[in-house]
């Protein structure tokens, strides 16, 4: 059985909260993080979002750290380059590396910190959405945002069949592995090609069957979407507004502050 982010989102207690509220929180976090001029507000946002995801959304802590590790790697390499190769002002740290002089200057260091904080806060916001809001909840949001009906219908069908084909692909791959289909590089390539072509043919057939299935239940070209009403409760509203106000206050207070 594969575990994908959507599965965790489906099990999260925050799944049953208002989708618009969650979207608003995420959008606010992204915008506030990007417009901050000091690393403190983005770090605050990252902390709040992580808390919400892990403590309120019940995402496994281990998984959450693992997820953060991937973008963290990119962020750190980028940040190191910024720290060493940009900025002016007094030197904080300098040494020679294989005969090249390297130094970190204050401006560069501050910029690096800011970039790092912004990217982490952005990641935390997006993970909050990904780990608490499964795709099936977002279809209603897509519909309310006036996207074309056929686009939404297609995305609903595609969502369902991603999993059917994922299972199919896994079982084909398993069938190939047990017959040594992946024992050498060239064989792996061949097997992978066969898997792809089989999947293509199968998906074509599945399309036929889907049409049959829909037809036999009187499909007339319209798939109705049933929206579940999830009113925003008072505690959520209070918590969200407190978070918004605190972040705004932090943004204002750290407008001209510098860490170093």
């Amino acid at each position, binding site marked *: 059985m594969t575990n994908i982010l959507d599965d965790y989102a489906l099990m999260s207690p925050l799944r049953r909260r208002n989708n618009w509220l969650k979207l608003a929180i995420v959008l606010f976090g992204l915008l506030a993080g990007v417009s901050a001029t000091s690393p403190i507000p983005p770090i605050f946002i990252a902390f709040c979002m992580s808390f919400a995801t892990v403590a309120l959304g019940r995402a496994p802590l281990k998984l959450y750290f693992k997820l953060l590790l991937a973008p963290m790697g990119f962020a750190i390499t980028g940040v190191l380059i910024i720290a060493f190769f940009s900025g002016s002002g007094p030197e904080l740290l300098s040494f020679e590396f294989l005969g090249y002089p390297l130094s970190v200057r204050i401006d560069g260091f501050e910029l690096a910190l800011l970039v790092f904080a912004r990217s982490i806060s952005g990641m935390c916001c997006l993970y909050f959405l990904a780990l608490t809001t499964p795709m099936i909840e977002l279809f209603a949001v897509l519909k309310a945002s006036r996207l074309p009906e056929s686009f939404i219908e297609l995305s609903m069908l595609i969502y369902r069949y991603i999993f059917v084909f994922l299972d199919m692909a896994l079982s084909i791959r398993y069938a190939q592995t047990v017959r040594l289909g992946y024992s050498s590089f060239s064989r792996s390539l061949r097997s992978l090609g066969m898997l792809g072509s089989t999947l293509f043919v199968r998906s074509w057939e599945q399309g036929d069957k889907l049409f049959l299935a829909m037809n036999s239940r009187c*499909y007339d070209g319209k798939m109705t979407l049933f929206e579940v009403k999830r009113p925003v409760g008072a505690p959520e509203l209070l918590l969200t507004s407190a978070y918004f106000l605190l972040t705004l206050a932090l943004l204002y207070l750290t407008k001209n502050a510098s860490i170093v």
Partner: protein
Amino acid sequence: MIILETRGLKYTYPDGTVAVQDINIEIKKGKKVAFVGQNGSGKSTLFLLLNGTLKPNQGEVLFHGFPFKYDSKSLRDIRKSVGIVFQNSDDQIFAPTVYQDVAFGPANLGYSKERVDTCAQQALEYVGLSRLKDKPPHHLSGGQKKRVAIAGIMAMEPEVIILDEPLSNLDPVGADEIMDLLNEFNQFGSTIIISTHDVDLAYRWSDYVFLLSNSKVIGQGTPADVFKDPELLKKTGLRQPTTLEIYHEIERRGLAYGGNSPKTIPELVNTLKPLDLMWVDVPPRVREGDNLNLGVMYGQYATQSPYEAINATVLHIHPDGRAIVELKRKGIKAGGVLIYDTDSYSLPEIKQILKEGEIVFVGAMGKKSKILAERDGVRLDVSSGVIDKSILMALCGKRCLILTAGGMVDHAFNRIKEYVETSGIEFTVGVANREEGCQWLEETEDIPETLKI
């Protein structure tokens, strides 16, 4: 009344393969019909023809006596009335959540939002999946997916439900639950048509069987008639049902009464001829071949129920006045089966029945009743094959309680009543919480006579 009928039906696939030909069948309303045949014998194609999805090359299909028309409005009416459940649930379930899939059919029928909701909720409750309605289908087990597929069809309230291989890939308990569901729909008047290559299932479950082979119907009739004929079965490439095969072997050895077609294990047990001999002191005038009334026995002499009226046939008289007799037993106070309708459920009442009714064996049929029993800690001895096992227990003098609801109450009651009538073995059967009251709680005890041997 004939609900579905075909005349000279023929269908050839575009590549020239003949899928079905020369099909003339009549399906009566309210029956449980099984199409039995090997893989590739044309069952699935026939089903698609019956539902108007495929259009025959020759012949016609009639619904309530009117031939199918293949314009979109008539097709809509046909598909509303004749629902089809596919073999592979993944082919049928396409919506991202369980609820949306079940609501798809009613929504297409143009019902109001409230009515769609009621239909979908009811169907889900019926199949016992209300709790999973917001789940995506890929989080469900095979049996659950099958139940979602059935709910999707049920929500459209069809008159005929067609199921293609309903039990393939299901475990025994899951299979049993699906069959319970089908029996219940049937009890409410739906006509159920299934295809299967499981002869045991077709033999046990159906009212009427069609045998298909090489795209033709080669035999039809009641299951007892159809499966009696070994030649016919050989032509279809099928074997005899296990119960029937065992029965024939026992009968050939003279251990069972002949001329029966037992469908279930209780019926099979009932055909057994017990060779029950005993030494008895007989009065002087008795001759060999006479019948004696030995009165009522109990305790260690009653093997099948607490008290037995016993008649004996004298086989041989010994010079010293003792004789060998063959006993014929008839239980006079056997066990019983009590059915409890969980639609009006109260735990204290069940506890009282369990205590006062001296019940030793409890079973539950249907998802709802099982969930109730589990919630309230009512210990269940059996949860699959409930009716058969309860009859077997009752035959051994035990008292059983079956918890069930809705149409399954009548279904269970009728099945057991039918058994009592055909077998001649008396045991009480009743529905506990209905008007008629509970028989055995008022039953007077016979005073058993002892027998001198």
